[in-house]
Structures are given as C-alpha cells and as structure tokens.
C-alpha cells in the first residue's frame, strides 16, 4: 500500500494526553475524540487533520495507553504518522486500529508539502524527496491490510 496526504508538522514527545485529553475519554462516540484532537496543543489543528500525514519528532504517542488517541487521529481523517520513533503502546494501538505509521529517522517536515509513504516498501517521500524508513513486520502489515486487529481476528475464525 502507498499512502498519500499533506504534511502537518509536529514536535517531539507528543503525548497521548495532548492527542486527546482525559476529559473526553468517557464516551463511545468517536466523533467527540476527532473533534477535540490536539485541542490542548493547538485548537486549530483538528480542522487540518483530513488527509493529513503527521510528521513528528521522536517519541510520538508517549504516556497513557489510551487507544482513543490513534482512533481520534484516524476518525479525524489522518492518513498516517511518520516519526523517528514512537512510544511502543501507541505504535501497537495504531496498527491495531488500522492507522498506518512508520519510523523514519531522517525525514524533514515542510508544512502542507505533499507526502507519500509505503509501509511495505520502507520509504517516505516529502515534496519529491525520498527517504528510507523502517518497513513494518509482515504481521503488522497483515493487520493493517485488514483495517485493524478486530477485522484480522474476524477473518481468522
């Protein structure tokens, strides 16, 4: 799969409290999470998530294990996330809810630049410049192709 979108640049150590604040967690309504995504970082960001590929600094998704964080991003229209490193629970959660993401050490972000990336091919392209990224494992790719772990499990029955 090759994914395409427009870059939204974020800094290092973006924690899951900032992605979706604790005060919005007690609901099953995914739109609420999407509407309030990144609210405490920059309330204007939620409107820019449709078709976005987030390019962030190291340790994206650190902190709480809340799965509402990758769900909020996906529900808001985020195509994928690229960062030099991810907090491991966020990384697993993103794959499990069908949000593609990749580790890429060298990528430089330019806000709104066209971005494409391939989780199988192991590359990220920003504004026409291609960078090497860490490909996902076969199992993670399989889960992503199913759209997440729930669908993956349903097919395994």
């Amino acid at each position, binding site marked *: 799969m090759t994914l395409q979108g427009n870059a939204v640049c974020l800094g290092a*150590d973006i*924690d899951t*409290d*900032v992605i979706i*604040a*604790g*005060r919005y*967690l*007690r*609901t*099953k309504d995914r739109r609420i999470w999407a509407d309030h995504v990144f609210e*405490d970082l920059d309330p204007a960001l939620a409107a820019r998530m449709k078709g976005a590929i987030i390019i962030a600094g*190291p*340790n994206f998704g*650190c*902190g*709480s*294990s*809340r*799965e*509402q964080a990758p769900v909020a991003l996906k529900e808001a229209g985020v195509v994928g996330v690229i960062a030099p*490193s*991810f*907090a*491991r*629970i966020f990384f*697993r*959660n993103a794959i*499990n*809810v069908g949000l593609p993401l990749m580790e890429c050490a060298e990528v430089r972000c330019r806000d709104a630049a066209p971005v494409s990336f391939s989780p199988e091919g192991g590359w990220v392209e920003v504004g026409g410049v291609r960078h090497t990224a860490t490909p996902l*494992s076969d*199992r993670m790719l399989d889960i992503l192709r199913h759209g*997440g*772990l*729930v669908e993956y*499990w*349903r097919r395994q*029955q």
Partner: protein
Amino acid sequence: MSTLSERILGAPAGSFVDRAVDRAFVHDGTGVLTLEAWRRMERERLACPERLSMLFDHITPANNSTTAALQAELRTFAAERGLHFSDIGGGICHQLMSEGIVCPGEVVVGADSHSCTLGAFGAFATGVGATDMAAIWASGSTWFRVPETIAIHLEGRLRGAAEAKDIALDYVRRLGMDGGTYQALEFLGEGAGSLSMENRLTITNMAVETGAKTGLFYADAVTAYYLGEYGNRTLPQAVGEGRYARELTLDLDDLVPLIAAPHRVDNGAPVTEFEAVEIDQVFVGTCTNGRYEDLARFAGIVAGKKVAVRTIVVPASRSVLLKAAETGVLSTLIEAGCTVGPPGCGPCLGAHMGVLGEGEVGLSTANRNFRNRMGVGAEYYLCSPSTAAASALRGAIASPEGLA
C-alpha cells in the same frame, strides 16, 4: 546468561514471540473499548476468564451519568463472565495486582501504561491498548518483541530525605522521556536489594516515563517475604550476567530529593532549586506513591501541624486505607487538614476530584506532569511524599531534609 526479560519470554532480545499471559487486567477506562473490540471480534467465549481482572479505579465513583452507564455495562459483563472484579473503592489496578496476585516469572499484561509497575516482582509486566487486550480475552495470549535491556545499578543506600521516588525521578531525568523506548529496565545492585517491595513498585512504576516496556527487579528474600504475607511461596531469581544495551549507575548515597518541573517528567532537578515556588494544591497518591509507607511518611511529617494549602490524599487501595485507619495515620492526616479521597486514581488523569484551574500550581506524587493533564492551564510539579509533606506545611515547594 540472559536478561530477566529474555528468560521470562524464552527468547533472545529482538525476537518476536507469542506468549500465553498469566494475568491480564483492564480498568473502568480501558475496559470500555476492550469490551467493544472483543464483541466486534465475535468470539463466543473468553479464552481464560480465570486469568482476567477488571478493576475500577480511574473515575470512581462515577462523575456523571455517562460514566455511570459505561461502568454499569462493564460491571454486568464481569459478573456474567466470572472475571475477577473490583468495584469503586477497591483501589488502583496496579496496586490490587500487587497485593498477592502477581508472582515472579509471570507474564502480566494490563490495559494501562503503568502496568510496568508489576515488574517489581520479577514478572514481565507491560501495558497494552484496548484492542490488544480484546485479542488476549479471545485467545489468552499475545505477541511481544523481546526487548533489549538497560541495566540500572543502584549503588549504596538511601540516606537523608531521599527516597524511592527520587530514584525514579533520577533515572527518568538521566535516560530522558524516550531513553528507554522499546527496551526494558533492570534494577540491580546492593541498593536494589535494600529496597522494600513498596519502594520497588514506586521505581518500576515510572519505567514507562522513559518509554520502556517494563522495569524489573529480581525476586529475592524481600519479594518472598512480601508475597508470603499473602500466602504465596516464591523462589528467588538468580541474577546473571545479561547482555545489556546500556548500563547506568545511580549512587544512592549521594541522592537528594528531586522535583520534576512542568511539563516534562524528565525535567528533574534538586528540590532546593525550586524552594519558594508557591503552590495552590498538594496531591498525595497514585500508583506511584499512594501506598501505606508513602502515606505514613507524609503523615509523620505533618503530624501535629496544619497544612498551609489544600491537600488531597488518595490511598492506592482499600487495604492501604484500612491500614492507615488502624495505625492512626488516617487521623493524623485528617487532623493536619488533609482531604482524604476514596481509593483510586484521584485527580491524576485530570477527570475529577482535584483538577486544577487556569494558572494554578500543583505539587503531586504522581508520575506525569504533562501540559494540561491535571487541569487546563495549570502547572504540575512531581515529587516524593516527603517533599510533598514539607511543601504542604509551607505552602511553597520545600525540601524535606531534616524533617523526615
């Protein structure tokens, strides 16, 4: 020889393994999405209900009707399916799992990032998200990448007013918020052996604040004695010469009380650099520092005096509260002017029971001081229970040196 993680997971670092889990738990927050994902997986039965726990701690008692309805659904499910269940007032999931349930060598998975706490028993304990947990409910197992390990050698012994929380704040500031990502931390050395089980739980609790998958102490006589009190017989784990990705030495003899300043957990420095920072509220509790020893140390300092700022104390579990009541610690806290909350997470996650307002400054024994987490526009400093006590008396950040 292998690291403790490699031994428990049965494969060298870097391997991917599927492992049956010995204990798996959710709380009232992550349980909601876990149940939803599990239902969507359309499995008839839970693979091993006897290994599953559901422990209410995050917003307990419920703060509104929406939360109450979500909790009611979980409560009914737990009863129908025979899960080990703890309702409001029972306490924090990690604390309850530490009260005689988790044993050395086990694989323990919790739907909460601070599940690494239970590595204090020499178990491989880590946090997962809700959908991973749903798959564990369905299959009884999950996959792991066996982590590389950072060895943290604790030399010497704690002296003066420094305590376990200061060890935690020290290794977090040295490693940084992503210094342990994808890795495990192992706590070794003479200093590790000298620490009580409660102290060890405080230290492993913050492993995830470096990004680490878990933090482990080797089971020893201290572990065996603690678990023996709950009727569990355990054997010590031999400390071998593992192959470590990195080694770090902390000299406990020289350690002083520390503060993690807003808004980063790795933003640590000696308390003395923050003295006179005025505070609006002190919060003592959480899976980091809500245990009996923590409350007793805090009470020992405020005994016979009055706190100068509003001070919230939340015991980590019902048994902690009960012990505090039996020993007089509870009445000491109340007489000093503290507000005592029901066992659970309290205001730590920023949902209820002590959230700060815009521009307010809080001092907390919790593990996270992320921007806006415990109140939009507020600032939170992290510290030990002793530092919290000295500061509560003054109304400003103060060192506990000479008070403890």
